[in-house]
């Protein structure tokens, strides 16, 4: 609701105030929500593997990890996850100039923001309708209204309606587990209804530092990890997602006007006036947005979703780790191999907090009296009986990847045991931003099927080969 204000504005950086207009657009009508996830997006996301924790195959998981990044949808060519996920890191990838490098990452990360829009033709038609409605009726009417009533009056009217919607913000703060926010709302309501003269003034926000908690049912659903669904442009009301539309209906049940104003006509009249008054305070925003856009429809759709995402992100989705829908399991859990030289154990390990496997723990014990050498150069990752590149191990940095060419033989002294956490280079993705220790990649999920290792160990020129495979399934 604060967003509905972006009045005329602003100063310079404003460079884009326009975008904010969108926020207003819907927000004044009420509230809604955000969040992503449409199957196709999902795929895309998996593939990009840009975020360090991420190439999960699980929708839930992804949502929680990257709430901001998700939303629009139509990828031109949604490549299958496997394809991109398994793209080998060529030297070209690795040798990128550094400062340009991050731009690239950023670009990919941003690439993902879209929402499904199966109704696009209809939505666009409604967009034109709303556009005409605005320029032909709403704007001239608002201009007349502005001419008659000074801005201060209109701000007071807006404050009054905002104050009246206290139940929406209060209830949703609680539903989002934000009890402090709920408390702030109670204080605000008490202060603004009295000192603020029935809510026409808002002494809470400025003087008392009690900021409005801009929460609504749509956001609550987002916090609960409900996805956006698809984009719906409503006549008169403007942009919604499926989720925010449901939220909007929910909100109206928390709106005192719905309960206490009879008859119906007066009720709708009041709600309409509320919206009209808001529009009168933001004339010019929509025009600026349209002017700045290459394709105003897409600009608004994207801005709306980004805005809703930001609102939910601000609060944070519920922290409990919901068990991902797709939990992978490994059969057997640990694979063992033994020969006269060594005993080996291979155990797939889940990615922290995730339902999928990303690494193996390899334990190798030298049974002989002499040194054994583990030959990483000739040891391969096996996927469904095929060799799919080599392994990397924990602690290797992004820069280190380039130098790993001449892999040394790793010695294991007589009777000693070597333990290593390894992962297929094939499945690596680029992480966005450098993690502590300079690690800039993220391990991808071990796909379903037979995953394993074709191990090569040497002793005095003798080569000992051993294969260990586990079956990974959902």
């Amino acid at each position, binding site marked *: 609701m*604060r967003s509905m204000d972006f009045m005329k504005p602003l100063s310079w950086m404003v*460079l884009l105030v326009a975008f904010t207009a*969108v926020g207003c657009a819907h927000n004044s009508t009420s509230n809604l929500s955000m969040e992503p996830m449409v199957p196709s997006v999902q795929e895309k996301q998996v593939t990009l593997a840009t975020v360090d924790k991420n190439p999960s195959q699980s929708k839930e998981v992804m949502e929680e990890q990257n709430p901001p990044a998700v939303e629009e949808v139509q990828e031109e060519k949604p490549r299958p996850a496997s394809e991109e996920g398994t793209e080998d890191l060529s030297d070209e990838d690795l040798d990128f100039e550094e400062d340009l490098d991050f731009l690239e990452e950023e670009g990919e990360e941003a690439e993902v923001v879209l929402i499904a829009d199966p109704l696009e033709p209809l939505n666009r038609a409604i967009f034109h309708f709303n556009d005409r409605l605005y320029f032909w009726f709403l704007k001239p009417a608002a201009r007349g209204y502005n001419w008659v009533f000074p801005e201060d009056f209109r701000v007071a009217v807006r404050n009054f309606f905002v104050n009246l919607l206290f139940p929406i913000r209060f209830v949703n703060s609680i539903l989002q587990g934000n009890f402090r926010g709920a408390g702030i709302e109670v204080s605000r309501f008490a202060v603004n209804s009295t000192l603020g003269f029935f809510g026409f003034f808002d002494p809470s926000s400025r003087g008392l530092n009690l900021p409005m908690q801009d929460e609504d049912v749509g956001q609550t659903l987002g916090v609960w990890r409900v996805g956006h669904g698809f984009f719906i442009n409503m006549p008169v009301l403007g942009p919604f997602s499926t989720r925010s539309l449901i939220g909007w209906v929910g909100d109206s049940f928390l709106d005192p006007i719905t309960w206490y104003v009879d008859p119906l006509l007066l009720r709708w009249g009041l709600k309409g006036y509320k919206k009209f008054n808001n529009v009168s305070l933001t004339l010019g925003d929509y025009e*600026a947005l349209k002017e700045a856009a*290459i394709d105003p429809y897409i600009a608004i*759709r994207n801005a709306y979703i980004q805005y809703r995402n930001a609102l939910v992100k601000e609060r944070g989705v519920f922290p409990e780790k919901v068990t991902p829908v797709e939990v992978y399991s490994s059969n057997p859990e640990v694979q063992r191999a033994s020969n006269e030289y060594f005993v080996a154990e291979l155990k797939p390990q889940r990615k922290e907090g995730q339902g999928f496997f990303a690494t193996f723990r390899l334990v190798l014990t030298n049974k002989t009296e002499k040194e054994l050498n583990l030959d990483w150069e000739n040891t391969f990752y096996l996927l469904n009986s095929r060799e799919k590149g080599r392994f990397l191990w924990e602690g290797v940095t992004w820069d280190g990847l380039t130098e790993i060419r001449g892999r040394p033989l790793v010695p294991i002294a007589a009777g000693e045991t070597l333990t290593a956490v390894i992962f297929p280079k094939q499945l690596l993705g680029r992480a966005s*931003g*450098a993690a502590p220790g300079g690690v800039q990649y993220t391990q991808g999920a071990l796909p379903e099927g037979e995953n394993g290792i074709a191990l090569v160990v040497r002793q005095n020129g003798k080569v000992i080969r051993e294969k260990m495979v586990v079956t990974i399934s959902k």
Partner: protein
Amino acid sequence: MKRLRVGFILLVLLIIPFHAGAGVPLDTVEGHVNEVLKVLRDPALQGEANKEAKQERIEAVADEMFDYVALSRLTLGRNWKEFNEDQKKEFVQLYRSILEKAYMDRILSYTDEKVIFDKETMLSEKKAEVQTHILTKSTEIPIFYRVYLKDGKWKVYDVIIEGISLINNYRTQFRDILANNPPEEVLKILRKKTEPA
């Protein structure tokens, strides 16, 4: 001994604020924004007659503040590679004028809103986010600048207003066009849009 330790802790506490205080990214953004505000408030530049002069001065600051190449590159994402050298150059120019043209009027309509510089967050060694907000009579608008270190200077490569990223927003628009059209088509649209009316 104990006293010494307390003394040491106090010393550390005294020092910390200086380090934790505004860093270079925030200072850089603040400097540019203040320059613009100065131009806007300059009594010598008031009135319709000086509009053009004002505009030029602001554009000069913007050129210093923004890295339009990075902005363009990020906006196009993967499609950047589809553009040849000349097309890239032209795109950067056109995109820049679109942004300037679209927002200049709004910037010029600035009156007495206050800009508050909240904080900076380092996103990596060479990237930072500077958080600011504008306080108007009736509302507050958060505006975040994403900056990165380029040749020793912090340059803006994205602006996020109310959670809406500029490059992200344009990206979806260009991508839609580029899905079925060659880069030339985008340039054609941009040329048309930047033509003086």
